């Protein structure tokens, strides 16, 4: 129980992560999937940043005082770049959603699968 209390931050972040994960795999609407992916992504960032935290530490900007405790700067660097890369890849996802909407006139994945099955059946019928 003591260890559970000592790691509360990680467990709370995992709950957030699973909310995002559920949205990605359960929802058929592609924009909703992307939002779920964003929530998932941000939660993973929180997990990393939690690991870098040192109790009674301060932000890793040197003060010149040798007794200052700094939090770990390495996770900050990794996540900083990951956020910007994340938005760039999210933009690719939205661009694909726009193209899908223009081609299929829907962004619900079950409807798209139906349309593709119809298309396939039609082309097979033509071939035979």
């Amino acid at each position, binding site marked *: 129980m003591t*260890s*559970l209390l*000592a*790691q*509360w*931050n*990680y467990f*709370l972040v*995992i*709950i957030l992560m*699973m*909310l995002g994960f*559920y949205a990605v*795999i*359960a*929802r*058929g*609407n592609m*924009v*909703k999937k992307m*939002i779920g992916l*964003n929530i998932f992504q*941000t939660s993973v*960032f*929180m997990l990393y*940043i*939690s*690991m*870098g*935290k*040192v*109790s009674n530490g301060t932000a*890793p*900007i*040197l003060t010149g005082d040798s007794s200052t405790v700094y*939090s*770990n*700067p390495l*996770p900050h*660097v990794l*996540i900083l*770049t990951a*956020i*910007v*890369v994340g*938005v*760039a*890849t*999210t*933009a*690719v996802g*939205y*661009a*694909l*959603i*726009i*193209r899908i909407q223009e081609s299929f006139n*829907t962004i*619900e994945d079950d*409807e798209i699968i139906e349309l593709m099955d119809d298309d396939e059946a039609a082309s097979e019928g033509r071939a035979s």
Partner: protein
Amino acid sequence: MGFIIDATLIAFLALIAISALRRKRLFGMVMLSGAFSLVAATLFLVLDAVDVAFTEAAVGAGISTVLALATLSLVPAEEKPHSIAIVPAFLALTTGLLLSIAVSDLPEFGAADAPIHNHVAPEFIIGSEEKIGVPNVVTSVLASYRGYDTLGETVVVFTAAIAVLLIIGGWTRRETETAESTEDDHAG
């Protein structure tokens, strides 16, 4: 004290996330996702990651909301009604349980003697002062110690922009016109 602040912020985040996922209208969902990013930025600030908080506030709450809104003006405004899906919910619960078991092996939250604080991080903090002379350790690690990594990330951002421009950019006028005419042919 730290526990109360963090737990309150994470509870806010969970509330926003659940409310965003329950929403049928996509517009409200996108705005809530922007709010999620803003609260997440506050949490990063509490956890001493000032640079990350800055980036999350500018990118997550700003640019990504703008891009999502631009997408929304081209797609249907509402989601098809769904009931709670049992299998994905079960999968998410199982994954969460497995992750919780894995996480319980991690060192205590905030422990100063955790392995990640004792290997490269002290070198970065000392070296940033003596060898590089830049007070912001995050900048010196980002640009100097892990320069390869940052170069790679910059190339990823570059590639993503090229990909978006190729997918929806309308690279030149003539090319978009041919794309339209083929679409029309397909529709006709």
